[in-house]
């Protein structure tokens, strides 16, 4: 934009298009609308339509998409779209709770490491490096195997494997805040270590923590879905996105492509909406740093 040296191997007319980013509302509005619709559907639909009433309807089983069932019906005659709403309800709840759990763990570790410093810091950061070396899903599988597949096991499994990012963020934020004048002022004023941490440092890292929690939700949903797909997640009767795709795997061989379409698409759309929203948020919070992981 203002940088005179910017040169790109493209016609000048396009340089302006590429270097001026789309205004935030281009990402904000579609993401917010999609997410709003999904959240509304997930909250309201179960109140209006009772899944049990149309649990099994063998007369209309295995129907490809038509006007009555836009995404078809499954092998028991249940509407795939409706089941998908229930599945998203389960998956998003698991994702939200698990993201909160992992952020809480990460914040605790990061705040401890950053504010105490010294060998505690080195030890904790080595621990973070060590856990980061174990592939997430593998560690998650081990944890679920030990606790036996269940909702709690899945949440614990996500919580214990995904706290690393927020621990690193909180630690580095705390380290940079520690040398600010207002912390010096608090020390001079006689505040204890704990009080400085709770009253001065943590409130200042809250926006970053909330942002990383939001960014964590798609990862958590993805992790839950992968575990459920492997048969190590939620119990099979619980409709979650992973379980639905796992069920649909069998119908795929007999030509029932539509049963896995809706859950996969739903997951993609929700993930894109969440990362679009948090991308706007991140740009506001931290305009200079942009990562390629969100848009």
């Amino acid at each position, binding site marked *: 934009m203002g*940088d005179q*040296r*910017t*040169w*790109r*191997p*493209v016609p000048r007319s*396009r*340089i302006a*298009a*590429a*270097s001026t980013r789309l205004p935030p509302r281009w990402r904000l509005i579609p993401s917010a609308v999609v997410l709003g619709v999904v959240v509304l559907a997930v909250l309201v639909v179960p109140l209006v339509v009772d899944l049990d009433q149309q649990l099994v309807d063998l007369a209309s089983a295995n129907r490809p998409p038509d006007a009555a069932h836009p995404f078809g019906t499954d092998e028991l005659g249940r509407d795939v779209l409706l089941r998908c709403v229930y599945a998203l309800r389960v998956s998003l709840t698991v994702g939200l709770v698990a993201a909160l759990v992992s952020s809480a763990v990460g914040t605790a570790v990061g705040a401890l490491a950053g504010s105490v410093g010294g060998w505690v810091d080195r030890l904790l950061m*080595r621990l973070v*490096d*060590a856990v*980061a*070396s*174990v*592939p*997430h*899903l*593998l*560690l998650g*599988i*081990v*944890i*679920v*195997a*030990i*606790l036996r597949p269940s909702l709690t096991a899945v949440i614990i499994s996500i919580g214990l494997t995904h706290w690393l990012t927020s621990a690193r963020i909180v630690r580095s934020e705390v380290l940079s805040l520690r040398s600010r004048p207002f912390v010096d002022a608090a020390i001079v004023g006689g505040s204890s270590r704990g009080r400085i941490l709770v009253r001065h440092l943590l409130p200042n890292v809250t926006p970053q923590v909330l942002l990383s929690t939001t960014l964590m939700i*798609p990862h958590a949903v*993805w992790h839950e*879905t*992968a575990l459920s*797909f*492997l*048969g*190590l997640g939620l119990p099979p009767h619980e409709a979650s996105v992973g379980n639905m*795709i796992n069920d*649909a*795997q069998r119908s*795929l*061989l007999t*030509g029932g*492509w539509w049963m*896995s379409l809706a*859950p*996969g698409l739903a*997951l*993609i759309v929700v*993930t*894109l909406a969440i*990362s679009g929203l948090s991308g706007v948020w991140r740009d506001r919070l931290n305009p200079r740093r942009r990562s*390629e*992981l969100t*848009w």
Partner: protein
Amino acid sequence: MTAPARRRRGRAIGLLALRRLGFAVPVLLLVSFALFALAKASPFDPIERYFGVRIIGASPERIARIRENWGVDRPVVEQYLAWLRHAVAGDFGDSLSLRQPVSEVIGDRMGWTVLLVSAGFALALLLGLLLGTVAAWFAGGWLDRAITATSYTLEAAPVFWLGLAALYVFALQLRWLPGGGLTDAGEALGVGQVATHIVLPMSVLAISQAPWFVLFVRQNLLESFSQDHVVGARSRGLSDRRVVLGHALRTSLLPFLTLVGARLPELITGALLVETVFSWPGIARATVDAALNVDFALMGALTVLATAVVLLGNLIADVLYALADPRVGLDG
């Protein structure tokens, strides 16, 4: 660089590698001990699992003898040290679910997983470099937008869902490629058979990993366009192609090296899921079976192995980075 400086640099890189290896050992010990302790703390009794239903008919003496032989009543640390002694010698115990030594299970399957992962990784890198460069070249154009949008969408899609879609389209509907396993039913194992069977799993793994590389290459390339050496090359009147491929791409590839190493855990996770979808006879099936049957010997060995692979990958990436870029500091 002068010869002594190069020698010094070489020694420093060797020290870096040693330091990293020194870090790897405690990490592996920590991971293995944590797994071991978790296994012992879990309510599953390996003796009961070993007998299964037959435990009702088994004599107490026999149970006591096996208990004694396995040493399950000794303290955890003692058991761990015994396990470690054997593990260092290559003996990871017996898998309860597959009734076969763990080292044999891993030995049989490892090769297939390595084949799949390396083929998929190579393809993903190729796609990433190619599409990332194209996107950066046409930055702001429709091709760039199409590539970027597709990358974001694919990045959000679960890999096993992509696998199922590919399976349905290419194996079940078009019947171009076989849909699973290593060979067709009744066929002997041969290069031709494996080559056709690996195409789908390899491509799905590559497509699920590539978006991240595409976006990364694009972003780095765009940033390098405004760096001095690229502007300099441009002002000397070199052609666009020389400037982008010879100057901008080469320097923006450096951070790529370390990130390739950092991407290994994701790659292993992706391979696990792809193998499951395509019934590829690698370690994924064994992992899931081990988890479903609470087979700690197998699960522990696999996790420790995967961790070792990740640590080694990071080490190699860092060494390559330091070798490729003399400006890289070597203290960390």
